[in-house]
């Protein structure tokens, strides 16, 4: 075996060794904390009053947004979430828009804000831990003091939630943090607090799921009571009529689950919520990273082989360079 082949063989050998010592490290999609908090949004109860949008702005100290083409900048009119708006209500329209919560010739409202994923992409993507998921409550929070403004979270989020204030000299990410800053005063998410119909309901995700299951089990057109504000808080329920739900609790399985879950009469892909697989992208990515870089075993073994080869091979060139062109 000549020297060249020896190096090739030793490189191949070390690669095999590295692969052998570091087996595939599968990172499963995370599971929800039993104490997770979240929101239940019921599109069939929403009347599109946008009290939640206004309350959210006030609770989070966000400035109003005016329509770009309006000559009357008098009131807040965000069309989408942005660096200055953490939640909006959007409307689905079809044909004559005759009937609420109908896919054909109907209309429906839908809330857009952070889903508080059980296994969030933004947290996995952020290189400086500015995005964090509370291990107990599961709230996905943002720290601008840690953030370096790379916007990988914006690119990574499958719901397009984290937004960035591009127009500021010292910009930052904006996203819903479930109003966790209000908890110390015994308050909860402002959007749920002000919702007049209970379309947005705050509570433990476990309880919210039970409430969602109860509604889905009722016969459309019958009377029932709908809680408002905080599930498990003071009773603010009111009697109402059960709508016809599609057979889908969005956020139950999507992406390993989310802590904002949603009910609707119109399929969610029509409302701007895509079909997502049950496995989170964070799990996929981290499985790869942990396999390649777990304990830095593979890189170090590879480095050792490279250093060995380089040491053997550079000696020759250094001698030549020291001698200059004298032996040309």
């Amino acid at each position, binding site marked *: 075996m000549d020297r060249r082949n020896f190096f090739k063989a030793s490189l191949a050998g070390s690669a095999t060794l590295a692969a052998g010592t570091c087996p595939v490290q599968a990172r499963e999609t995370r599971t929800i904390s039993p104490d997770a908090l979240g929101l239940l949004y019921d599109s069939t109860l929403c009347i599109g009053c946008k009290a939640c949008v206004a309350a959210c702005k006030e609770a989070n100290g966000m400035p109003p947004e005016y329509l770009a083409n309006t000559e009357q900048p008098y009131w807040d009119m965000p069309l989408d979430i942005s660096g200055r708006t953490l939640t909006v209500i959007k409307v689905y329209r079809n044909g004559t828009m005759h009937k609420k919560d109908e896919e054909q010739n109907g209309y429906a409202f839908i809330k857009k804000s952070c889903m508080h994923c059980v296994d969030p992409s933004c947290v996995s993507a952020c290189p400086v*831990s500015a995005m964090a998921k509370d291990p107990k409550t599961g709230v996905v929070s943002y720290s601008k003091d840690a953030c*370096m403004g790379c*916007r990988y979270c914006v690119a990574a989020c499958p719901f*397009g939630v984290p937004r*960035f204030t591009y127009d500021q000299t010292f910009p930052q990410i904006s996203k819903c943090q479930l109003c966790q800053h209000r908890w110390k005063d015994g308050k909860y998410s402002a959007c749920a607090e002000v919702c007049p119909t209970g379309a947005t309901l705050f509570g433990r995700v476990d309880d919210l799921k039970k409430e969602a299951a109860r509604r889905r089990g009722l016969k459309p057109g019958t009377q029932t009571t709908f809680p408002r504000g905080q599930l498990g808080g003071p009773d603010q329920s009111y009697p109402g009529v059960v709508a016809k739900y599609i057979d889908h609790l969005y956020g139950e399985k999507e992406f390993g689950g989310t802590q904002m879950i949603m009910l609707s009469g119109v399929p969610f892909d029509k409302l701007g919520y895509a079909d997502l697989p049950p496995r989170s992208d964070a799990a996929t990515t981290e499985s790869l*990273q942990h396999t390649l870089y777990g304990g830095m075993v593979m890189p170090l073994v590879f480095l050792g082989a490279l250093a060995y080869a380089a040491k053997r*091979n550079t000696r020759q*060139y250094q001698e030549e360079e020291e001698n200059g062109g004298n032996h040309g």
Partner: protein
Amino acid sequence: MAEHAHAPAPLGGKLITPVTLCLGAISLAMGIVMIVRFIFGLGAVTNLNDGYPFGIWIVYDVVIGSAFACGGYTMALLVYIFNKGEYHPLVRPALLASVFGYSLAAVSVIMDMGRYWNAWHIFWPGYANVNSVLFEVATCISLYILVMWIEFSPAFLDKIAVGFLKKIIPDVKKIVAKLMFLCIALGVLLPTMHQSSLGSMLLIMGNQINPLWQSGYLLPLEYLMTAVLLGFSVVVVEATLVSLAFKRPMETPLLARLAKFIWGLLLAYLVLRIGGLVMHGAIPNAFHFTLETFWFWVEMISFILPLILLAKPAGRNNAGKLFAAAVLLMLGGFMLRLNGFLVGYETGDGWHYFPSLPELIVTVGLISFEILAYIVLVKLLPVLPAVKPATSH
């Protein structure tokens, strides 16, 4: 042994020429945009938005630019690891281009970072998130830039030996020479890591990436293989252009042998790439009538044509065909990355992105500055192999 004897020597010649003046003017324009950006923010100069949070400052200057700067990596791999000594004269010029490519990519990142004053967090325990692919990319690239400057230092250490530095430079040179093997090893390891990770960055974007480019676990391999292909191609293009521009003899025989490696690797890449598309069931997407499909075919054809051009020894030994194949490969690698990060990225309806004029000025400005610095440095420092060996010794 004849090639080895061509020790690197400064080219000499005038520094101020119409070309360098022109490059300097573009670099200056870039400087102005940079000032505006830091005073008024990203929105004042870029078309970035929440649907396209990464623009050309990331996708071109970093993702594509660093792959174009893989000449130093691939030549070090060939010469020092696989011990192909005949390519030694190509190492230093390739390394110079690489060190500039990467250093300027770092400048671009700082420009692009909204909260750049927190950039150090990425190296700080407590902030650093080791699960993040971007953490791997950023730390790895930073370390690689440092390693490359050390690798390149023998070319300039003598020049900066003035004042108090005069005393310590000989010792520094000795230490650098002793540790050079480690730098070379790191100089191969680190690009292997971050060039593959640049592909892995797309994993977390999931099905926001068109299936034509969301290759799942094949992403790191695809990006690594094309980075090596690009590295070789850049060396071919660079060597040809340098020969033409400075009226030096062509290095065709040497490059032709290099082209054989390129061909084999290219074949392997295409098998992997097309196999991946089949595996992910993305083949039907290649025949939709969309803009994505058009750019997909531009990318694929740019990889397939060089496979034909370089298939036979006659093609590899033809300076023109070799150059054309290398340029096509650069286009292919360029398109793969542009497609993955921008053309094939779709996060919802209603978002558009095309770089603004200031964004383009910065990108073109960085390239201009890179070429300018390359020209100046090969004239001042021993980078290119001397044409007539050793007459001055």
